[in-house]
């Protein structure tokens, strides 16, 4: 697989046929939104360019110039001196509202509280593919930096013109422009007043190197944190519109069930209730939530569901239904590698379907005004949802506005627009704004899951620790993180699509969790096979300095070379994904009677280039470790015949306070390297580290996630 294939592969589950480009936020729309002041445009081509070196801006001389058709983001300093950033990205708890604010404030030399970030409103913000793949920090942030730096230079030139001095003598201090001896000063508003200047970021604009950052690189608090701790922030679920009614959907008896018959007379007789039926879609609206619920339950429906595979047969089913393989051309020769090996190992690893379970369930408020549709909804793909709506209602995208309030998390689970479509369908039928909030059970049953998968590994190793052959086949779970950063001479790595019995899609880190689990448990098995220390064995096969650095950092902090804690097992894992490096060491205790696994201590080292916000990065890494505990130990979707059997919190265990180990995070700050995203990769190391620690504690090797489901424990 070459690098380009790999990139496409990462996005296999992330893109539901979304267009890479969309020229909808064009010059005309921009000019409608831009009333005056100074604007700096980031062209879309800058954001989708594969490397930062490929950035192309248009030549940026003074004065207005051609506005590109494909605007990716823009910064506006209006005539009141307000700095606004317009981006189609969404805030779902990863704190990019704060980190993007930091980037812009840094380059403009203004305080953080003067910058406002307008996000994810399809009428106000330019097209964006979606917020996923840890792309905001490596792609959006550097471009906004450039735009802010260009805006600063433009403003300085304007201030210098007012004073008839050289631009080089003008500085910005505390959001004021001052001349060489600080005898004169101007505010942002005074400089922007009367201007109507639009520029595209020039190709040669210089941004502040990370070593000189003063705002970025520091632990700026969450910019609107106060709204969250006071309950004032309005999520989609909290919105209310005049005349709004409440919706409910009548759900099928099972996945892929077809409607045979329905009788809604009783529901229709309820005061204020409207029943909407359109093909297999049946929904109701009512003036209040309780009536909507009663009406939904009063509809008699008969569904017919096809027989479908369940848990017991899942892994055989996935292998049997493998349809195609995608992978790189093998490196070297597995046959030769195996011939050179002194020991060989073949093992199979599995991962279960798990649910995102975002605490704010899917929700939408939909409102039609004549032929214009507005939908507020929590999604990671506002423009994708707009496309879904356009398709569902056969209307042009210009007639649709999707607004995403900062959302109660997603973890890759909110890429689709079904709730928005349902709310809009009900709203069109009733002629009133409709609020639709999925119940927790609907969230489990009608959203989508992290793919389950089967992974087969064949390897050969020499007694000195050299891995001579590495053959790796992943069925269904995905290709992310499938490539090795180890220096294996002979490799054959393949991903095989399969037919999934359950609806599946993106999940934080995608398949990198499954692939790291299989790879790093297998590495532990090889180390054991040749009686070598797991850290020394890995180091023997690593040439990549960054991977080596995180592995050594985690091992040192953990005290790997020191004495083991009595009664506990320890394990380690390392890896690379989405531009960042990780190593995780875990210490566990296993109750001899009950087999209950308790993760006692986790040390995780992480390196993602230059750190933008140390505290928020720590928070992301800690959070990923905690979320990883669920998938590692107990999260496991049970299903049969198209029905989810454990689709509620009383049946589906999530990590809680009492599951929390002592967590120590070691952040390696590489100010000499561009910042990579950090929302995903910190999740991949925990499961293999814990599996290896369980082996160390008990001598039992578990090759299935979740680990606690195994009868071996």
């Amino acid at each position, binding site marked *: 697989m070459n690098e380009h294939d790999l990139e496409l592969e990462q996005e296999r589950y992330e893109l539901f046929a979304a267009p890479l480009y969309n020229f909808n936020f064009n010059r005309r729309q921009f000019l409608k939104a831009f009333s005056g002041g100074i604007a700096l445009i980031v062209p879309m081509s800058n954001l989708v360019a594969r490397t930062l070196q490929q950035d192309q801006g248009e030549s940026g001389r003074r004065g207005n110039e051609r506005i590109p058709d494909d605007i990716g983001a823009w910064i506006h300093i209006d005539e009141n001196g307000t700095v606004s950033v317009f981006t189609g990205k969404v805030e*779902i*708890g*990863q*704190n990019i509202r704060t980190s993007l604010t930091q980037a812009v404030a840094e380059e403009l030399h203004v305080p953080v509280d003067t910058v406002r970030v307008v996000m994810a409103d399809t009428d106000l913000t330019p097209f964006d593919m979606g917020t996923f793949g840890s792309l905001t920090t490596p792609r959006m942030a550097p471009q906004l930096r450039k735009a802010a730096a260009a805006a600063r230079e433009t403003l300085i030139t304007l201030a210098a013109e007012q004073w008839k001095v050289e631009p080089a003598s003008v500085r910005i201090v505390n959001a004021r422009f001052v001349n060489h001896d600080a005898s004169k000063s101007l505010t942002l508003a005074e400089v922007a007043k009367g201007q109507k200047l639009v520029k595209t970021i020039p190709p040669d604009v210089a941004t502040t190197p990370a070593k000189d950052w003063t705002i970025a690189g520091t*632990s700026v*608090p*969450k910019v609107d*944190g*106060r709204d*969250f*701790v*006071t*309950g*004032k*922030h*309005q*999520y989609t*679920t*909290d919105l*209310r519109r005049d005349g709004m009614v*409440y919706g409910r959907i009548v759900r099928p008896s099972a996945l892929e069930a077809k409607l045979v018959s329905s009788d809604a007379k009783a529901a229709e007789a309820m005061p204020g209730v409207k029943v909407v039926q359109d093909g297999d879609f049946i929904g109701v609206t009512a003036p*209040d*939530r*309780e009536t909507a619920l009663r009406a939904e339950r009063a509809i008699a429906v008969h569904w017919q569901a096809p027989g479908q595979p369940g848990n017991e047969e899942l892994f055989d089913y996935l292998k049997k239904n493998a349809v195609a393989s995608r992978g790189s051309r093998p490196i070297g020769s597995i046959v030769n590698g195996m011939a050179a090996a002194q020991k060989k190992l073949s093992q199979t690893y599995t991962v279960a379907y798990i649910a995102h*379970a*975002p*605490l*704010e*369930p899917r929700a939408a408020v939909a409102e039609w005004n004549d032929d214009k549709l507005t939908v507020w909804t929590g999604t990671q793909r506002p423009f994708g949802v707009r496309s879904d709506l356009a398709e569902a209602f056969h209307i042009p995208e210009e007639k649709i506005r999707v607004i995403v309030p*900062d*959302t*109660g*998390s997603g*973890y890759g689970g909110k890429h689709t627009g079904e709730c928005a479509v349902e709310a809009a369908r009900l709203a069109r039928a009733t002629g009133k704004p409709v609020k639709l*909030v999925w*119940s*927790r059970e609907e969230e489990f049953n009608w959203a989508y899951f992290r793919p389950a998968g089967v992974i087969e590994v064949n390897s050969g190793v020499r007694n000195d620790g050299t891995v001579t052959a590495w053959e790796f086949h992943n069925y269904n779970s995905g290709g992310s993180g499938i490539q090795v950063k180890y220096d294996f001479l002979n490799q054959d790595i393949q991903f095989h699509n399969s037919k999934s019995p359950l609806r599946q899609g993106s999940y934080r880190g995608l398949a990198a969790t499954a692939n790291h689990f299989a790879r790093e448990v297998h590495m532990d098995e090889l180390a054991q096979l040749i009686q070598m220390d797991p850290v020394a064995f890995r180091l023997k096969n690593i040439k990549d300095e960054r991977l080596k650095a995180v592995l050594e950092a985690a091992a040192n902090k953990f005290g790997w070379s020191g004495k083991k804690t009595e009664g506990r097992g320890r394990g380690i894992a390392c890896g690379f994904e989405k531009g960042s490096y990780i190593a995780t060491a875990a210490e566990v205790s296993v109750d001899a009677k009950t087999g209950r696994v308790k993760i006692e201590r986790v040390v995780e080292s992480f390196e993602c280039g230059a750190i933008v916000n*140390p*505290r*928020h990065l*720590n*928070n*992301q890494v*800690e*959070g*990923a*470790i*905690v*979320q990883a505990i669920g998938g590692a130990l107990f999260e496991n979707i049970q299903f049969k015949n198209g029905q989810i059997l454990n689709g*509620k*919190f*009383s049946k589906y265990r*999530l*990590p*809680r*306070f*009492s599951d*929390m180990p002592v*967590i120590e995070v070691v952040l390696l700050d590489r100010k000499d390297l561009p910042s990579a995203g950090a929302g995903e990769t910190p999740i991949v190391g925990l499961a293999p580290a814990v599996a290896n620690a369980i082996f160390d504690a008990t001598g039992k090797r578990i090759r299935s996630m979740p680990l606690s489901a195994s009868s071996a424990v």
Partner: protein
Amino acid sequence: MPNVTTLNVNGKKVRVDVDSQMPLLYVLRDHLNMTGTKYGCGEAKCGACTVLVDGQPMRSCVTPVSRASDKQITTIEGLERDGKLHPLQEAFLKADALQCGYCTSGMIMSASALLNKNAKPSRDEIVKHMDGNICRCGTYARIVNAIEMAAGTAKEVAE
């Protein structure tokens, strides 16, 4: 049972007219437009809907409004006084004890119930008391840190 017509919420008497069996959560959210209290699971398993009823933490999603009708109800909206945040609210900000923030109201209300009865809880007591509240973003360590800060027992503030 007759409808519930008055409630005491955050020290104020408010008029409603709702079925006595309606969960308190929806009375607050839909009828009083106090949306700081959140729905998470509807079966008292996540704590997002936690409010205080006469100082006791209650899962409002499974609490019929009639059970709170003659009592003092405190919600997240009632913690801030004259523009001054409650010490727990301050501490949650200082400790960065949230990511998406959806669980935060319930976390703060549960924690306030703990501190009301136990001003200096141990770490184990905090974990035990808070175990019914889920933070899917996984900020548990920071929430514990925030509660200790509010209680004045925090040894260090997490970076």
